[in-house]
């Protein structure tokens, strides 16, 4: 590993200045659980590493009834699920951050980092998409907001331009009759990369028997995490039942275009999309009724 320079700005402006001034050898360090491995293994290189954990805007974690969840880009997984109100309000997100690596990884890894690393198999991205989360980006040209489902563009690539930085993610406030869940399939029970993952978010009607809104997102089955739009649309107005969940799973499979690799065959991954969609819908509906 070639040595690099290290900077830990405390102001957002300063960080943007640093990022904009440097060349494409600049890497952002949040939890470091991906970037340090990538630098060590020569998958990426760096002249300058900018540590963003000392910028206060990026470490904010705030839950409010009217604004929803504000999640600073460098907030660790651990802080999210340790906050019982947040974990209760956004259980689908809590499901994901509890299983990203072991405890040691969760102490450092951030949801923002998980998004910016833009792995197709990222665990935190499907729940963000399911929750209709927004990415808040700052750069030399000012700030912009992008829906999370439009953030990733290819494995390891995203819409961030030179000098831009993810500042925060916001998740809309959750009505009481909404529920969500994330599940991934891995051969072990921990410490693994998803073979396939699915997040489901639903909002039920007053009776709790009918689905008013639904959003399903998938990981590890396409070049980026994907929003299963047809399955999500179809669920609107459906009565909660195992058959409906299974049918939604079948529809979700249509957006899967996985590859064969050491983690699973395309056929197996596509099949898992159906299973995980069905299972996460069931959990999401159950949670929505509580």
């Amino acid at each position, binding site marked *: 590993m070639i040595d690099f320079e290290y900077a830990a700005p405390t102001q957002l402006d300063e960080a943007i200045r640093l990022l904009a001034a440097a060349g494409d050898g600049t890497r952002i360090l949040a939890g470091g659980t991906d970037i340090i491995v990538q*630098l060590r293994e020569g998958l990426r290189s760096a002249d300058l590493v900018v540590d963003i954990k000392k910028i206060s805007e990026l470490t904010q974690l705030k839950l409010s009834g009217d604004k929803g969840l504000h999640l600073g880009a460098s907030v660790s997984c651990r802080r999210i699920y340790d906050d019982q109100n947040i974990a209760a309000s956004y259980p689908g997100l809590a499901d994901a951050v509890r299983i990203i*690596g072991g*405890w040691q990884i969760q102490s450092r890894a951030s949801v923002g980092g998980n998004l910016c690393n833009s792995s197709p198999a990222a665990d935190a991205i499907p729940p963000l998409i399911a929750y209709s989360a927004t990415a808040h980006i700052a750069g030399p040209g000012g700030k912009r907001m992008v829906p999370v489902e439009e953030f990733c563009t290819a494995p390891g690539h995203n819409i961030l331009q030179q000098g831009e930085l993810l500042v925060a993610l916001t998740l809309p406030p959750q009505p009481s009759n909404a529920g969500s869940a994330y599940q991934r399939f891995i051969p072990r029970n921990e410490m693994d990369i998803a073979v396939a993952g699915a997040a489901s978010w639903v909002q039920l009607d007053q009776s709790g028997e009918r689905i008013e809104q639904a959003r399903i997102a998938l990981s590890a089955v396409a070049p980026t995490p994907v929003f299963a739009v047809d399955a999500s649309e179809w669920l609107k107005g459906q009565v909660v039942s195992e058959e409906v969940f299974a049918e939604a799973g079948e529809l979700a499979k249509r957006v899967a275009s996985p590859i064969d690799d050491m983690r699973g065959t395309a056929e197996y991954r596509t099949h898992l999309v159906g299973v995980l969609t069905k299972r996460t819908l069931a959990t999401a509906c159950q949670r929505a009724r509580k």
Partner: protein
Amino acid sequence: MKTHVTTTINGATVEFLCQPRQSLLAVLRDELSLTGCKEGCNNGNCGACTVMLDGLPVDSCLVLAVEAEGAEIETVEGIAEQGHLHPLQQCFLEGAALQCGICTPGFLVTAKALLEKNPQPSEQEIRFGLAGNLCRCTGYDKIVRAVQAASQASPES
């Protein structure tokens, strides 16, 4: 070019110079002679290098040493106090919860953090909490039992 870092390790202020590319693990072991944390995989998958960083267990191979500026670090060397083993250490000994011993420091650091957060964990909570630490010798049975024994021995219970 080396960076000057001031940090607290096991309660004492420590200063060191490091290259930005050096991991906290490398500095603890190579510069500060705190060789209790071990390198098993150097990419965050085995937990042998676990230390406490600002109150949370981390894989020190996935922390840059420069990030330790102003931080509080605890290592396995800091678990026993004034010549007395911590109850967890004692339970590891009495319960034969180690064989080759290379993973033991990492397990102790994580287990101590677990018991401080959750003094009476269930077996599944222990297993989930320790899933980031690999052991190849014991099959984990005696490690889990040692943590259970320590949780029963702790004053909180």
